């Protein structure tokens, strides 16, 4: 499977990856200018944390080999796909218990801000026929895809 690797030392906190993610998951937008940044429904599936020294730490879903989120899922909505290795989320199956948020040991997951009815979760841009949008937009190669 493929995984987004992180070189935190290179990250400059420009948040291009966040914007790329927002755009990739907002159907019909062709550029950043199509995004309404005060729309609460506009959310990124990744995040850049700051540690206590102010250093940027990119936080991206690992699509873990043993995903805590999928273990916690009681509806069958969060599933580790054996073929691709991706942890896929099906919002139609989801029963909104949010035990996946509770059980992600890295704190990657969150409920959506506007309605609190689905999980904001990286899908690896799997239906885009290219590498993840965040990776494409990173200007310093702090995130890159590798086969593992």
């Amino acid at each position, binding site marked *: 499977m493929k*995984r987004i690797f*992180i070189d*935190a030392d290179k990250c400059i906190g420009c948040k291009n990856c966040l914007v790329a993610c927002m755009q990739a998951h907002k159907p019909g937008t062709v550029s950043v200018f199509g995004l309404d940044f005060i729309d609460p429904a506009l959310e990124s599936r990744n995040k850049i944390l700051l540690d206590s020294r102010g250093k940027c730490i990119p936080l991206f879903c690992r699509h873990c080999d043993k995903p805590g989120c999928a273990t916690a899922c*009681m509806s*069958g909505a969060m599933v580790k796909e054996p073929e691709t290795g991706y942890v896929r989320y099906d919002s139609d199956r989801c029963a909104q218990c949010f035990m996946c948020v509770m*059980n992600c040991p890295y*704190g990657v997951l*969150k409920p959506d801000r506007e309605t609190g009815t689905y999980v904001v979760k990286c899908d690896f841009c799997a239906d885009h026929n290219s590498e993840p949008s965040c990776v494409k937009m990173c200007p310093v190669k702090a995130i890159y895809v590798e086969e593992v």
Partner: protein
Amino acid sequence: MKHVIIGASAAGISAAKTIRKQRTDDEIVIISKDDTVYSRCMLHKYISGERSVQDLSFVPEGFFKNSRIRHLAGVNATGIDTAKKVVFFDGGQELYDKLLIATGAESVYPPIDGLKGAENVRALRDLSDAKIIREKALAADNIVIIGAGLVGLDAAYALVEMGKKPIIVDLAEAILPANLDVRAAAAYKTEFEKAGCVFRLGVRVIGVIRDQNGLVTSVTLDGKEALPCGLLIVAAGVRPAIGFLENSGIACTDSVTVNEYLETSVPDVYAAGDVAGLSRNWPNAVKQGEIAAMNMCGVSTVYDDTFALKNTVNFFGILSLSFGEFVPADGDIEYCRESRGRYEKVILRNGVPVGVIRQGDISYSGFWQYLIKNKINIADIPISVWKLSFADSFGMAENGEYEWTVRA
């Protein structure tokens, strides 16, 4: 090798999946009292009419066929002969090489005369319960629920969605005592009351009155108040479902006794999930199913991720999450903050987080579980508890998975 699993819920299904992954050609049989696979956590969504039986399933369509699992559905296991390695059930028996007991738990009825056996009294544990509760609730006017824990309130929430206004009785003064602190729970109480529910808290049910047909018509509380009752839902707790093990020689206390490999006192017999008494939540049951299955397949694996004090609650669009303890002990430091619709609490004991509650916004809070269960001292991390995240612990393994660099 032939694996028999008793129970088709969180632990049983995860064990079956794990065995199939490990052993392509082993025979797997699941015996379950349930006719279908469904998630108990969603039963209230069936009662309210939000989901069909099919939509309660947590396995993909064709799961048993595609995984080559024989499912003996709708049969009760009645006993085990561990010398001959046979499981007995209504109408048959099944030989095993490795056996997993994953029968879960069953409802407890409080010791009140006349409660058991009445047609309009029902606990909420199984789909069969939910079906009867839905059917009776559609026609009932006065519905009383005993128990203001998560199951009782799940039932209440479903009834509210059906336009009903149940009365909820509990001996405890606060609702959701196993899930949240008093402050966080109060937010839900307010919403349930706004929706027309009535609480009778700190009150004991001392009796019921039944009519000539045996139906309960009224519930008597210890203040002598009598609540008219057309349907009584019992949500007063559960106990591990071990009744059928009585003469099996498998050691039990209140639950099946297991070692760190989740093996029982009898070789080749394992237990996982609520029946093993180690936890009462879905994620831990799934994990235990996996671990037991690995051992059943000969891959020696210890169950060490035992932390089970974790919860989420979601009613009326208010999300809450909790880990660990809710009430600070002497010498603990408690951090609290509130803003509109939000409440957060962190309890530190000698620098180690022992409890976290978040309500309103639970985003990105999973990392707390790791800190609490691994007893990681955060006192030396020079950052506010409100800004704490995985960042100061960031590390990456060779395969790109995250690794914690801060240790206990």
